[in-house]
């Protein structure tokens, strides 16, 4: 019950007029970011970080995390009303959400989505509340080799469990690690990989890279398709809404299953996008009316939304307790923590309980605030998409460049945004995953430091990673995650080929 006391203390920290105001502002900004193509949660949070320097860290993290929840809600809004996923994680919501809205039930579709999203988020926060204390105590036993093993595990999980080609994930990861090592090395103090360019001395900021990759890159992908929205009515009918809320308990099995999928994918580096697809697939298999999926089944909305949000919230647990974020947005937020002078990891729980438990408590409040706000303001935000792209597009571009500039007031960063915008477009079109690149840029220094310290401990022998039981266990899981999924695919493919070969004989 120690956690419960701490949580109550957290509510005391979180519920102040300023914090409530920041939650509302964050959710509303997040909705804008989630609705607009080209602005998503990762770069929305990046754009906001320079503006939080004048806030205290608790207020700042409440603003940023509320924005994340808002962006998740906003992404589902456009999926349902326009068949355009505002966020990658809401792609699966379009499958049944848009058909239901087109058949004249847009209120039902939106209410189902927002309510199950809210429930998913609450499931996630409850898991965090229960596990946070345990996870941080567990992590206190970690030394440098264990930390390196955990980073290795995170990287390996991306490579093995990601849906993209393994070598493309490796390219994305290692490119991120290399970019992170540009500039002053914080162990030896040497200047690295600047090739004489003084602009590179301070390193390449991951915030600027994220703004380019996710902002400009996604916008270019939108431009290439030549946007034309075919929206459906976005009016919310109060009676329909209440009727839909009353029908929710019928989908309890889907909700529980999807919540569990979300928790698993949120704590391991699967991320919300993978969680929503997986949960949609499971709901489809479990349903007796499986064939009707894709025509506006309520379970087809409940499943991806619940999983998306419970994964999104659960991603905060490894970020806070271990300092290993499991989604791109969590990685950006962790970068923000480090800029504010906080070190994510188990010590954070011991040294800054106000911050940690304030954040966890705020997640309960801001998700409830989010559900209410989004139901009230949906028509307004849906109207944003009716603004012609020739106006909103350049405005998004200008905001991205302004955001890139404010990170460190350097004109060089404008070029970084531009170059990474083009790179982001190319990489997305070619199915390179971008999240590992961001993760590697944020974790690069920490991973290298952990490696360096382990090497100093062991006089340069790699066996240090297999000396303690804990460390070898983590390394073994990492190696297994790296190899096993791809091996299984290979076996399945060989077996399939064998079966086809026998048939043709």
């Amino acid at each position, binding site marked *: 019950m120690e956690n419960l006391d701490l949580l109550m203390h957290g509510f005391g920290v979180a519920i102040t007029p300023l914090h409530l105001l920041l939650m509302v502002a964050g959710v509303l900004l997040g909705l804008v970011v989630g609705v607009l193509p080209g602005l998503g949660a990762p770069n929305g949070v990046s754009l906001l970080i*320079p*503006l939080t320097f*004048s806030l205290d860290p608790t207020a700042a993290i409440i603003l940023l995390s509320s924005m994340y929840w808002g962006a998740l809600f906003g992404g589902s809004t456009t999926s349902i009303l326009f068949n355009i996923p505002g966020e990658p994680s809401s792609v699966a919501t379009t499958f049944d959400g848009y058909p239901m809205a087109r058949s004249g039930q847009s209120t039902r579709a939106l209410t189902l989505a927002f309510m199950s999203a809210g429930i998913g988020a609450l499931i996630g926060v409850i898991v965090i509340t229960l596990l946070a204390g345990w996870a941080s105590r567990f992590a206190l036993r970690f030394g440098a080799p264990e930390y390196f093993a955990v980073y290795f595990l995170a990287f390996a999980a991306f490579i093995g469990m990601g849906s993209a*080609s393994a*070598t*493309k994930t*490796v*390219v994305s990861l*290692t*490119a991120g*690690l*290399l970019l992170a*090592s540009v500039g002053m*090395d914080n*162990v*030896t103090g*040497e200047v*690295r*990989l600047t*090739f004489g360019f003084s602009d590179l001395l301070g390193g390449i900021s991951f915030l600027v890279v994220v703004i380019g990759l996710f902002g*400009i890159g996604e916008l*270019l992908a939108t*431009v*290439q*398709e*030549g946007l034309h929205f075919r929206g459906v009515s976005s009016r919310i009918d109060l009676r329909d809404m209440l009727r839909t809320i009353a029908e929710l308990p019928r989908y309890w099995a889907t909700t529980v299953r999807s919540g569990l999928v979300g928790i698993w994918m949120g704590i391991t580096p699967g991320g919300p996008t993978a969680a929503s697809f997986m949960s949609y697939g499971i709901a489809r298999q479990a349903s007796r009316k499986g064939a009707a999926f894709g025509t506006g089944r309520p379970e087809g909305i409940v499943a991806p939304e619940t999983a998306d949000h419970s994964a999104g919230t659960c991603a905060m647990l490894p970020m806070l307790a271990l300092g290993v974020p499991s989604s791109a947005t969590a990685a950006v937020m962790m970068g923000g923590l480090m800029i504010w002078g906080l070190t994510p990891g188990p010590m954070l729980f011991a040294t800054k309980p106000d911050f940690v438990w304030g954040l966890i408590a705020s997640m309960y409040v801001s998700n409830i605030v989010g559900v209410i706000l989004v139901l009230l303001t949906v028509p307004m935000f849906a109207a944003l998409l009716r603004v*012609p792209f*020739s*106006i909103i*597009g*350049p*405005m998004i*571009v*200008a905001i991205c*460049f*302004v955001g890139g*500039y*404010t990170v460190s*007031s350097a*004109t060089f960063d*404008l*070029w970084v945004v*531009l170059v990474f*915008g*083009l790179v982001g477009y*190319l*990489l997305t*079109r*070619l199915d*390179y995953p971008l999240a590992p690149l961001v993760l590697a840029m944020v974790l690069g220094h920490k991973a*290298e430091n952990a*490696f*360096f310290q382990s*090497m*100093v401990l062991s006089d*340069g022998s790699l066996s240090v990673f297999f000396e303690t039981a804990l460390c070898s266990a983590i390394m073994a899981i990492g190696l297994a995650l790296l190899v096993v999924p791809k091996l299984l695919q290979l076996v399945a493919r060989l077996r399939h080929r064998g079966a086809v070969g026998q048939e043709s004989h």
Partner: protein
Amino acid sequence: MTVRRFHAEAVTAIGTGALGVAGVVGAMQLGHGWSESGPESGYFPFYVGVILILASLWNLGTAFVAHRAALVREGQGEIEEPFLDGERLGRLARFGGTMIAFVILTLVMGIYVGAAAYIAWSAWRTGGYRLWVALAFGLGFSLALYVIFEIAFLVPLLKGPIEPLLGIY
């Protein structure tokens, strides 16, 4: 003009490989071995660069194999979908070109003038708004930037030669 997927894959793989080479070369200048106090500062980037080069080569090889398979299917009358057809390429080039012009203008004249001109130009030329409406959009946006950043959050943005004349620093 159309761009084939193979060309895009190959250019990207060569690009990421080049980044790896740059990392390895830079690390070799620093020293990538062991000193008495542990690994030298080039050690980590060196091996990361090597892995990046190997993965890029693998991607390049995969692209070649896929390309040859696509050519074979093309011989059988099946046309591969292009990575970018002429129409999309044109749209991208126009949007990207204006964006680059915006960045250059911003570097010379500051963000306020750059953003106002960029938004007004896009609204006028691609949006088909009348010139004075377009200018109002641009100036309105810059004014909003000024209020949000300089006044509300006290974050100074990049200024050019015009702002001091208006008494804004």
